[in-house]
């Protein structure tokens, strides 16, 4: 890997203190995420996978260690700078509640650009819309779209601003299997055809099967890693971890 990674964590720890004790959600995690690759972060509930995603995306801060997007150390940024960084360099796809209900599909897709006062690159918006098959849904409100369509709009929103990296948190978690498969295919194509970098948190081995690489977290540690994972291989690893 000659080019620098799209994102990385260096000795990152995240400690939540409660009155009774402290919880190490991340414990000295060091990991790189290469450009134009699709990475799945896996692990059981409470393993710290969501925390890692949030810290990498600049939504949460680490207690110690460093997190980088490109060459930018997120720990040095103010709330305002973090906001601007998210606006320009990061895209998000969440499990649910991905869209602003008062805006139509087209407005939702261009929201990050509009907020920044930018216009989409000529041709890019149309291409994304075409790839995602949303051309005839642009004037619809989220409530008029199916769950699969809503998530595709969310993907379009994440792609349209051409971010350095897209973070997806259980993107297919709320979808039926057919819509889920369709959505994951779109993410795959975004990486293959548009050279997009995607980091996805999931607990679904099938979803992880669409990724180039799967890393496994448990109790705040990275415990394992698979290149070109298949659902079966992922399932085996999970079983192994649980023993």
């Amino acid at each position, binding site marked *: 890997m000659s080019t620098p990674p799209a994102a990385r964590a260096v000795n990152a720890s995240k400690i939540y203190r409660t009155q009774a004790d402290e919880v190490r959600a991340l414990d000295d995690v060091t990991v790189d995420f290469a450009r134009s690759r699709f990475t799945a972060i896996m692990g059981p509930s409470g393993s710290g996978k*969501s925390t890692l995603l949030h810290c990498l*995306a600049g*939504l949460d801060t680490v207690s110690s260690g460093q997190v980088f997007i490109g060459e930018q150390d997120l720990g040095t940024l103010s709330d305002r700078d973090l906001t601007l960084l998210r606006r*320009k360099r990061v895209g*998000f796809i*969440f499990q649910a509640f991905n869209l602003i209900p008062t*805006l139509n599909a087209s407005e939702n897709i261009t*929201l990050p650009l509009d907020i920044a006062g930018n216009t989409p690159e000529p041709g890019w918006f149309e291409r994304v819309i075409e790839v995602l098959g949303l051309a005839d849904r642009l004037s619809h409100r989220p409530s008029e779209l199916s769950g699969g369509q809503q998530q595709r709009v969310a993907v379009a929103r994440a792609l349209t601003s051409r971010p350095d990296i897209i973070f997806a948190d259980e993107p297919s978690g709320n979808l039926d299997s057919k819509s889920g498969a369709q959505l994951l295919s779109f993410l795959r194509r975004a990486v293959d055809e548009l050279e997009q970098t995607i980091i996805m948190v999931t607990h679904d081995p099938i979803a992880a099967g669409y990724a180039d690489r799967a890393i496994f977290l448990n109790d705040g540690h990275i415990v394992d890693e698979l290149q070109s994972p298949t659902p079966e291989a992922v399932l085996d690893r999970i079983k192994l971890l649980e023993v």
Partner: protein
Amino acid sequence: MWKATWKGLIGHKLRLALTALAIVLGTGFVAGSYVFTDTLDGAFSALFQEAFAGSDVIIRPSVDEDLSFVLGDRMDAALENEVRAIDGVAGAEGTLGGFLVLIVDGESAGGQGPPTLGSAWVDTGNPLELRDGRKPESAGEVVIDKSSADRLGLTVGEQVQVIAVGEPVDMEVVGLVGLGSSDGFGGATAMAFERSQAESLFEAEGQVDAINVVAVAGVTPAELISRITPILPDNVEAVDSRTASEEQLTGFKDALGFINTFLLVFGFVSLFVGSFIIQNTFRVIIAQRTKELAMLRAVGATRAQIIRMVLTEAAIVSLIASLAGVVAGIGLAYAIKAIFEFFGGSLPDSGLVVLPRTLAVALAAGLTVTLASALLPALSASRIPPVAAMREVLSPAKKKSLRLRAVIGSLLTGSGGAALWFGLTGETPENLAPAAVVGAGAATIFVGVAVLTPLIVRPVGRAIGAPLKRLGPVGTIATENAVRSPRRTSATSASIMIGTALAGLALIFGASLSATTDALIKDQFRSDLIVQPSGFGGSQLSPEIARQMSILPEVESLVSIRQNAAKLNGERIFLDSANLEMLTELVQIESVQGDIASLADNEVGISADLAKDKNLTLGDEVTMTFARTGDQPFRIGAIFTQEGPGTSIVITDGAWDANFSERFDTAIFIKIAPGVGLEEGRAALTTVSEKFPGAEILDQNQFAAEAKNQINQFVGLVFALLGLTLLIGFFGILNTLLLAIIERTREIGLLRAVGTTRRQLSAMVTWEAVIVAVFGSLLGIALGIFFGWALITAIQQDSELLLSIPVLALTLSVIVAALAGVVAAVYPAWRASRLNVLAAIAYE
């Protein structure tokens, strides 16, 4: 269930506190009104009882209810001796008094404050007690009430001047007096003179106002009255002193009744406006607690229990708020008392009276409004199905029939409009007060419009927000958030709508009156200058002023006008008397039939409007009833027209002198001699008027300004009402925004995640508030214009009034409402921008 109720209350304390504010304000005004009235009542009834305590029976001109306030209707003093001769009378002495002006160091002492009164010193039934010095024994001596003397820095032995009917009279202060236990007379300045001095001051030789009678021990007042009554002439009666004191008290309370009415209107408007906000809050709280309520249902709570739970919450909130309101009301009564004293009035020193009735009314008002407002939300809470507890995503509420809403709203608005119109045009059933019908009509229209507004929130709100599109998603999202829940937006903006509607009405009414006044005065002002009393409270012009002015070389001609109440065929009217020949020259008044300038003393001139109203024609015989002389036959000698709300009935000075003993003028119209400049003329008149403090000389512009000043005071009063409703509306917006932000937590988190800055988020919340506020105020202005138009059209049926719409002032009130929205959004915007992004988007 009790536990759930309590937890519900605690869990929403901020929200409920904001809601409760409307109840606090409303019940505060209601309680304040009662406390103030009861306090006055207690203090003045003591005062008046003391004033009459020395006498058993009062003999006086029979008081016609409608003419009771008429002053100066006197009796022959000879009656005194006749009464003394009656068996059982221990003493009888006539009283004589009236308004006057006290001059200390060349300045009028009364000013704009309460009146200055003077009377003859009496030994029989004397209410006055000497505090210092001695009683007045000869001409040129005066005693003065101690609290006024203290205020004016007067002590025994000092020189003052007193003006009643004639020239100022020099007097020496020989004593200071109090009334019973009080040193003062409720702020009025009171003086007493020796009897013959009083007779000359009031030009009432051989006359008395009333006769105080004291009974021999063992003779009851009732017995005494039955013995005295046979010798009394017509139109004179004997009453016991308790009745007389109660009548005076009633008269006094009526005079201060406007404060009471004003506060009650404030209270009613607050509660009315508040009811929209209360309903809204409960609706939203219940929506937020859908799952919890469904869970309660699932574990076996009945619908009735759910309803009871919500209503119990409402009752507890209203109880706490109403109690706070009573405390606020007591504070308010204190404040009014302080304001009163600041403006020179003084109320008897007694603690504030808080009767159990006050508490009961305030609590009942608060409870009724809150429960009524919470009823619909409680019903909808009880309709939440138990299965809602299991659902992850709540199905949106069923769309209620828009047609039903449109029909109900239109029916309410229409019937309110009809009531308003009938109330305004006076076509109300006999037993209903037109003001009540108008008020109920207006309230019904407000409710009707509030029912209809959800139908127009979307298009109108979007139109208001259209210019914000330029702000990009901030503007778009703000606009869409403002209209996303039409019912909520409509309820939130209702208070602002009502406030601006009232303000708009006042502005239009005020502007119309001003425009009319300008036009009238231009039209009517044939004289150069007007002299009129500057004070209030019965201060009138001494006839001496007109007499002295008339002989000035700078004056070409003048006419002095007197005004008083009488009855025309049994109905109370105000009539004017003047030198009618001069009147037609100096005042715009045109005879249509007959000639007003040549009326005989047994003839009246009436306005064409009155003639039409009462079906009277030239030559008709009518009965005029005067307080002093009773029924008198008159004939209609002329019918005249006069621009605007002037006089409607005139009699000759001769007819006046025969039927009234009072001689004061209410205005003098003056034409300056040719070749004399206005200022020169004014200077000459001032040489007379400065001898009579309390008289002011006005030219056309000043007269107009004076008239408009009163209009502006009225508008100011209604603006205070706008301020109040805006305050409630302000908290309504604050409340709704806070609720909305909680509901939209995830949305806000998403916006922040994709790069919305805190500043952008604040702007979004602020613009949403502005759109809601502007929506409410535009609706209010539209209603206000309608009300204004209706009111003025109704008035136009009887008299001339120009409709004038003050565009600038109306625009200003929209801007003020928008600013209120901005301020209301400050805290919610801050809350929204500080929202923890992670918490907003995180699951599990």
